């Protein structure tokens, strides 16, 4: 079979695995959260049911073309990050389309989905959407500051921006991981991850009991289904990105599952402990501690 | 308290006074003096907190009784200023210039009793009832049961008992 077609099919399979793992991971995390507050929580298969239900609703309203396209952009954002990420190190099948760009491509592809979501929700015309997006964007600008610093620090450390090369440099056990060799960059990156995953204390944007419920106020049914699909993929893809950058990558699916789970768990763990920040608080917070850590992470290489 | 009441009596024609406790009393004065008294109490006697304004429909006597309840936050006393107004074309001087919250009470009275307060801001707007077309519902000549039966599709077969009798028969069936 033609290489491009086999590649496509492998990628599709990878996407399928990632989607399901993402949903399982999210239900598990919600169960963990429920246990913390003394409940049973949702059944582990609840995300699949919810998704099925959302895709099977029988009426649907639309506010216009961009409202319709918004979820597609959003899903493309998540899928795109997956596509450009070498998800399993050393595997040709699971390196996806990472040959078309390096780390910078992934960092900037995050915006693709955000922009689409912002525009789609904006066309919904609901004031809460616009407020939610403005908060989300405000927060995101500062989330990216420690991330950028961490990436620069990594680039100095490894003299490369290719994710595969960064992972390759970390092969050989725990002591070669970035976590060990460059703990400050890891710290900055992991703090930035808290914001990127949008759990408490940085979930002002989408928390149901803030302006309900932020950007996706008007989204329902199939649209919401697409957004949830994206959420599952995006969480795994982002966790995999952090795994590749800081935790030695994964050479097989089991390793990927364990590592992404732990990375995701980190944000849930913080989220169950800390209360929510207001937007200016989170903006200030990201510009303080994580940024300073990031700066030091660069200074030590100077 | 006594001193204040005496002082008021010397200045206004108090037709009736009712001292409930040593820190609460009600004075009834003519309609044209009521706002003046309220202002006096606010500005000279320290009754700076406005608690409420309410009305009672004395349908038999043909008038509404308005009560302005004022509180003195320094010596914790309260004075209710009562005044009787005509039930037909009931109007009363507005006191929204004394306390802003007065507007809301006056709006409510307008809606529920039909007492007009000319000049009070937004007094004609809907307050609680949206789109009420009948006579004001707190007037005692408004038959709420009849209205409800006409309007709200009562479910047939509903039994109604006098609560006291019913409780008695349930709890002490042998008596």
């Amino acid at each position, binding site marked *: 079979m033609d290489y491009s077609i086999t590649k496509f099919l492998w990628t599709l399979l990878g996407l399928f695995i990632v989607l399901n793992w993402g949903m399982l991971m999210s239900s598990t995390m919600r169960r963990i959260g429920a246990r913390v507050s003394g409940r049973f929580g949702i059944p582990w298969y609840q995300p699949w049911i919810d998704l099925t239900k959302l895709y099977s609703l029988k009426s649907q309203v639309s506010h216009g073309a961009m409202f319709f396209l918004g979820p597609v952009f959003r899903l493309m954002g998540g899928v795109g990050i997956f596509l450009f990420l070498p998800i399993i190190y050393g595997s040709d099948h699971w390196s996806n389309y990472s040959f078309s760009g390096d780390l910078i491509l992934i960092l*900037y592809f995050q915006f693709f989905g955000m922009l689409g979501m912002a525009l789609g929700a904006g066309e919904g015309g609901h004031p809460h959407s616009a407020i939610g997006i403005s908060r989300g964007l405000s927060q995101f600008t500062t989330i990216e500051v420690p991330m950028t610093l961490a990436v620069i620090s990594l680039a100095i450390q490894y003299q490369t921006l290719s994710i595969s090369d960064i992972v390759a440099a970390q092969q050989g056990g725990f002591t070669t991981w970035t976590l060990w060799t460059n703990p400050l960059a890891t710290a900055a990156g992991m703090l930035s991850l808290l914001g990127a995953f949008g759990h408490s204390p940085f979930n002002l944007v989408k928390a149901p009991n803030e302006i309900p419920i932020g950007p996706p106020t008007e989204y329902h049914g199939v649209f919401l289904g697409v957004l949830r699909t994206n959420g599952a993929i995006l969480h795994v893809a982002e966790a995999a990105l952090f795994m590749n950058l800081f935790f030695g990558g994964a050479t097989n699916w089991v390793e990927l599952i364990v590592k992404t789970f732990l990375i995701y768990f980190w944000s849930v763990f913080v989220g169950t402990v800390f209360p929510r920040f207001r937007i200016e608080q989170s903006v200030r917070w990201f510009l303080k501690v994580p940024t300073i850590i990031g700066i030091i992470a660069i200074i030590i290489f100077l | 308290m006594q001193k204040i009441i005496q002082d008021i009596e010397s200045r206004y024609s108090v037709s009736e006074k009712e001292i409930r406790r040593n820190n609460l009393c009600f004075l009834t004065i003519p309609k044209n003096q009521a706002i003046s008294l309220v202002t006096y109490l606010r500005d000279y006697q320290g009754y700076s907190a406005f608690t409420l304004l309410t009305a009672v429909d004395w349908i038999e006597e043909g008038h509404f009784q308005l009560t302005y309840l004022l509180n003195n936050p320094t010596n914790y006393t309260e004075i209710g200023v009562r005044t009787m107004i005509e039930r037909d074309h009931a109007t009363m001087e507005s006191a929204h210039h004394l306390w802003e919250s007065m507007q809301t009470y006056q709006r409510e009275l307008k809606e529920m009793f039909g007492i007009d307060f000319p000049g009070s801001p937004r007094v004609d707007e809907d307050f609680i009832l949206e789109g009420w077309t009948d006579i004001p519902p707190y007037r005692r000549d408004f038959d709420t049961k009849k209205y409800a039966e006409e309007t709200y599709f009562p479910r047939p077969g509903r039994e109604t008992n006098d609560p006291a009798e019913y409780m008695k028969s349930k709890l002490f069936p042998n008596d």
Partner: protein
Amino acid sequence: MVAPIYIIAVALGLAFLLGLLKSSSTNLGSLLMLAGLAFIAFVSGQWLYEFLINGRATEMIFTAGFKPPFSINLRMGMQEALLTTMINAAGLLSGLYLIDTLKKTGINSMTVLLVFVMSLNVIVMTRDIFNLFVFLEISSIATAGLVLLSSKGNAFQAGMKYLIATGIISGLFLIGIIFSYLYAGSLNIDELNAAHIMDIKGGAIAIFIIYVSVILELKPFPANGWGIDVYTAAKPGFSALISSGTATAGLYVAYKLLPLGGETWLPYFTIIGAITFIGSNLMGTRQQNPNRLLGYSSISQVGLLLMILGLSNQLGDNTLFIAFSILISHYAAKAGLFWLSGIVKSQNLEGWAVLRKQPFMLFLFGTFIFALIGFPPFPSFFGKWQLIMELATQENYLWMTLILTGSFIEAIYLFKWLGFAIKLDVPSNIVMKFEWNKYLPVYLMALTLYVIGFYVSPMVEGGAFINYIPLLFVLALFALDFLPVFVKNTISIAGIIYYMVDLFSQLENDLMRQIFAVIFLGGAVLTLMAGYNKKGTRAGFYPMALMMFAGLTGIIEANSMLEFFFSWEIMTAGSYFLIIRGKRSMPHGYSYMLFSIGGAYALLFGFALAYASGLDTTIAALGHITQLTTLAYTLLAVGFMTKTASLGLHIWLPGAHGEAESDVSPMVSAILLKAGVFGLMLLFLYMGTGTEGGDKLLYVLGWVGALTTLVGNLGAVFQEDAKRLLAYSSIGQLGYILFAVSIMTQLGWLAGFTYTINHFMFKAILFLVIGGIVVKLGTHNMYEMGGMIKKMPFSFIAVLISIIVIGGIPPLSGFAGKWLFYHAIIQKGWYFQGAVIFFAGIIAFLYLFKLIHSVFLGQLKDNHRNMKEISPWILIPSYLLIIGIMIFSAFPQKILQPIGEMLSVYFPESLHWEGTKAYTSLGYWDGTTIMIVVMTAFILLLGWLVLMSKKIKKVEQFNIVYAAERPFRPETTHVSYNIYAGYKKAVGFLVTPVVEIFWDSMSALLFDFAGWLRRIYSGNMQNYALHVVLFIVVFYLIALGGL
């Protein structure tokens, strides 16, 4: 040949004859006077012609047949012929101009005028110092007489003051003459000059007295109150003559007497000239009365000329050229302005808005102002250029600085005035009526400026190569200004396309210039296309737009620094007029002009240093600056950065771009700013890396670029005005470019080029589309817009694509810039600047979302419900540019690879291509593959959603969940105003307008200082006399006390 003596004879004869006439026969008298003035003008003109064409030798004329020292002798040489021609021409035109006034005031005044002109002639021609004295006396008495003719209330006073002051000065002069006669035994100037009086004991006193009186005649600052009063009080017609004639003659007197004291006295002329130049200009900033303002300006110009005379030993052979070119500009412009002032008849500057009723007169007004400041193509431009170049070769940096500072201060008030005339409401109480005898002189003076400018230019080194063809095209468009927009637009576009084709054949091997040629001229064509949707004639737009584009083309074509600077100034002038066309643009056009002039002077200084380093006039001279290298590069960079609006110099931009017309904004933003980029690139290429000062400068500029980006982008976030938002965004984007080129590696420059190309495309689209929408919706405020996606889908798509490019989101070309940036920064090691840059880059999303949301999404407003798509003439160029973006995005290597190869000549190669894939030492990127992957995936996902979707009910804008309520009004439902309140709370302190506060306080300081200085002019004669005495004493103490 008519002998010059006839000038005196005829004038005196006629003056007597006029005296004999009856006082009622004013018609005959005026005819006679004009005939006399025409005759003497003819005589001097004839001599000038002889000298110029036939190269005739200088002629000495001896009266009464004796040789000096026994007789008065006159000299008629090239200089005298020229000056007398100028004086007589001004006299004739003034006579013509004043003919009605003179008829009213009677025969006597005609006599006085004749005598006045004649006396100035003699002052120029005479070689006898006593004779000079006599005619100085005559001229000042005549001046007083002329002033007294004015019916203004303060004229009498002013005339008397003038008479008394000049009387004192003449007395002094006489004493000086007596002294010098004592020492030299001759009254002949040539013999005096040869007598070396300085060497004789006490001779210094004689020279001092003569010089002080000559200088006082020229009204030095601050001892010049009487002169100012005369300018204010006299009829504008006389003021013109006084300003152009007396000053010319007086300066020539100083020039004649220069050898008397020798070189030791020159510095005093320079110092006094400099003080006068700067002081008077400072005073000018506070003037409200046009005549008084012109008076200060005249005096300051005389000060400048005095400086030039004082510097004559350093300027060498060029002195006369420099002095003449500045003098003639001053002469023509000042005469023209005074005459205009007589036509406008307004006692305050604001009244000059009446000129807009007669656009041609406004054009002439602009001509005079630009000539005074020294813009090309006027002679003063070349004079100033030569002056600065010569001073730089002599390492006379102090005088250079002072001259440029003074010129800048002059620009402050002159451009304020011009702005008033262009933008203020036309006053209804002022009427301008056409009188040919008043208008003709003005026309002639303006014509003089252009003609002399053209003829003067080849005299400057490198000036002969200046390409006047684009300017002729501009002139042709001026002539065709009455045509409708459609025709003019077509002509302009055709002209530009023709020129572009022509230009490309010249630029075959120069990719950098080719790219900028495409941006400048291709951009010109695209933005001009948007002009097709305008109606009417759009008076004045096309010449100015074309002038700007001519300047831009000139910059690309320029081989020498002079050509470059010439084009740079032409571009500035054109863009100034474009910018000031906007409705509320007056203050913004003004600040744009001031920053531009400041920047231009910085450039001039830098060029001068480059020239002085190797006496090389080509641009390549920038490559080997040896004099004050760091300063030179800094100044040049600052000069270019005023155009790129970098931090500190950016405050003009938001207003200027935000308030400009809808198709002017893209011209000045997408295209004009690139001129600064081109300049910077040129500079850095010649500068190269490795020089110590240069590297420091680059480092600083890197930080400036990074901070500019941050401030620009943050500023944009908090804007409510759509066009200002875009303007701030431009500041930010130009910051990126500055940063990128400061990196000075191949990657950095590639990023710079990518940003330049991208910014050109997306900012042109955004300004075109948003400008069109702003016009259509009748508001700049974004919160008054909303929901336009339903009404203007094509605009939305255009803006959306631009936004994706600005944000640097893959797969569009903006990402190429980001990718190159990251790699360049990490390779260079500028990590923290890089972090700032990327932080700023993400902030861009805030304003981009605000822009697109507030305008296109959200709630459609009541009054926009019937809105239609914007004009196709705006959309067509936008979509052409979108095609460009798409091609650049899909095939980046097609463009970036050649640029990289071009840059590899200058920098070590750090990027290589394998097919469509780019590699650096750090990573890789394949734009084409990304495009394919993203497009495929997007289409598949869209298919997935369509597949899963049920029948969709399309709903209206208020069908939203609203906490069980319903929205009441679109205005209250549309979230846009202060949308980033939380962000402002957290980081808003970063956008405190520090820079604005700095410049505001600077200008306040300047104005306060000028206001304080103004108090010395009390109008009181005693004070003025005291000034004179003090001036003499101080001068004495400095000149002789220290001897």
